[in-house]
């Protein structure tokens, strides 16, 4: 800070405290994103939609757990895996609410140049938003799964061993939820980043997820076994079911994937990677504006 470099000094006190740098900015955006996802720290209006979805999902988990407990495990509406699959429409609705909230809002109000005038890279911004949305989706599904676990744990007859067995069921269910969260978060953020209008972003996200589902239905009735086995690749929802049956070695799920399990795994990975890279490319442009 040589005086020669100062164009105009009107004598304000300089900031001499610690500079927190990129990790702190990342953490701040992440925390703000996660709070914004559930409308925390915002008006009651912003809380209606996220909590409506969260409420329905929680209610389903409670009913499921109660039915299972009342019938001593005779009637199981959903296990930890099919719970995610059954809630898919609500997850779509949730990301359609939250993703535009996270990225479109910043574009519309024109604050991105302010963000990127900090020591913040496009990667940090995207990374923080993505992790925040993935965490929000994980909480949306993971907390109800945990409630189902509690119902199972408190009604078990085998003591600690029963609780442990229930937990061994829950842990892979959480893993599956994590894959759901990562895939849905990356795709919906990418779609939302194309428009600054939250309304259009929400419509686009829902349209994308919904229009892929019938493609699976059509491909799975074509007169070709290979096409039938690969049908699930066409839609994120059935892609995840395919990944599940590949990882668990199950063939009794709704979708028959034949020997193509590994293709499902690769596509899921590539889809997330591609969505994030495209997001990065998009924000590189914005960041250099």
């Amino acid at each position, binding site marked *: 800070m040589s005086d020669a470099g100062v164009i105009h000094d009107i004598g304000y006190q300089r900031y001499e405290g610690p500079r927190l740098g990129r990790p702190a900015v990342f953490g701040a955006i992440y925390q703000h994103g996660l709070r914004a996802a559930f409308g925390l720290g*915002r*008006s009651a*209006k*912003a809380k209606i*939609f996220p909590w*409506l979805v969260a409420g*329905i999902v929680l209610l389903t988990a409670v009913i499921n757990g109660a039915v299972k407990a009342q019938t001593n495990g005779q009637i199981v509406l959903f296990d930890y895996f099919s719970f995610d699959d059954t809630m898919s*429409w*609500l997850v*779509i*609705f949730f990301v*359609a*609410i939250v993703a535009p909230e996270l990225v479109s809002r910043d574009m519309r109000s024109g604050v991105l140049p302010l963000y990127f005038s900090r020591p913040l890279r496009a990667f940090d911004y995207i990374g923080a938003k993505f992790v925040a949305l993935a965490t929000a989706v994980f909480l949306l599904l993971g907390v109800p799964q945990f409630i189902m676990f509690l119902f199972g744990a408190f009604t078990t007859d085998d003591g600690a061993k029963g609780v442990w067995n229930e937990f061994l069921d829950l842990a892979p269910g959480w893993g599956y939820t994590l894959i759901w969260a990562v895939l849905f978060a990356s795709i919906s953020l990418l779609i939302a980043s194309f*428009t600054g*209008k*939250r*309304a*259009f972003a*929400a*419509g*686009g996200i*829902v*349209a994308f997820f*919904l*229009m892929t*589902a*019938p*493609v699976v*239905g*059509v491909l799975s*009735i*074509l*007169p*070709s076994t290979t096409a039938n086995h690969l049908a699930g690749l066409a839609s994120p929802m059935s892609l995840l079911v395919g990944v599940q049956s590949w990882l668990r070695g199950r063939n009794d799920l709704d979708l028959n994937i034949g020997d193509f399990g590994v293709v499902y795994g690769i596509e899921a990975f590539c889809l997330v990677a591609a969505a994030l890279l495209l997001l990065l490319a998009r924000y590189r442009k914005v960041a250099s504006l």
Partner: protein
Amino acid sequence: MSTVAYITMRGLLGRRRVLLLLPLPLLLVGLALICRAYDVNPEQWGQAVVLGLGLAVVLPVISLIVGTGVLGSEVDDGTIVHILTKPLPRRDIILAKLLVASGVSAVTSAVPLFFAGLLADSVRFGLALVVGAVVGAIAYSALFLLLSLVTRRPVLLGLAYILVWEGLLGRFVSGTRVLSIEQYVISITDKIAPTGMLDGKVSLPVAIVMSLIFALGGTIYAINRLGSFSVAGETS
């Protein structure tokens, strides 16, 4: 009134975002063509394409994007003030917007549905789908236009209606079907051209009367709301 319609039309179609309306209809026709090319029995694919994609996704989603776009985006931008300050009856503004919205959504969803129906069954089925889609587009547009006046988040409320009410509850709880526009469209189409693909769950009189109630009630209430519309900045 014609100027309002013209401006609305230009706002809707004059930008790049009109391309958003293209993929859904194209997918609908494309899937029908693929199935036809592979000689799959229409009994098998007809329901997935015509009902699962056409009536459950394309018609409501396009009506939603268009119906909330004609008025909602003007409310968002604040340009609604320019129209409201003109010496025009509020009724004319709503009618012009509704005309454009239902016209655009009817064309974009009825044309692909006609081809899908034609490929699946017959010209009669295609035309029945056109009638159903036009009725549906008018009812949906009136509903979504109204939503963009009563709430600041019309798209999310509309999505909740499509996804949760018609999609999730309509499948499990039979009582919700009486208030589901999708079911009216299915019933009307099924009555005009009975095929095995569509299964109307509500009776024809109920479907016609309820569609009318949605269309007229939505319009009248929207006129009423616009009559006492207060311009406010973005909240929440």
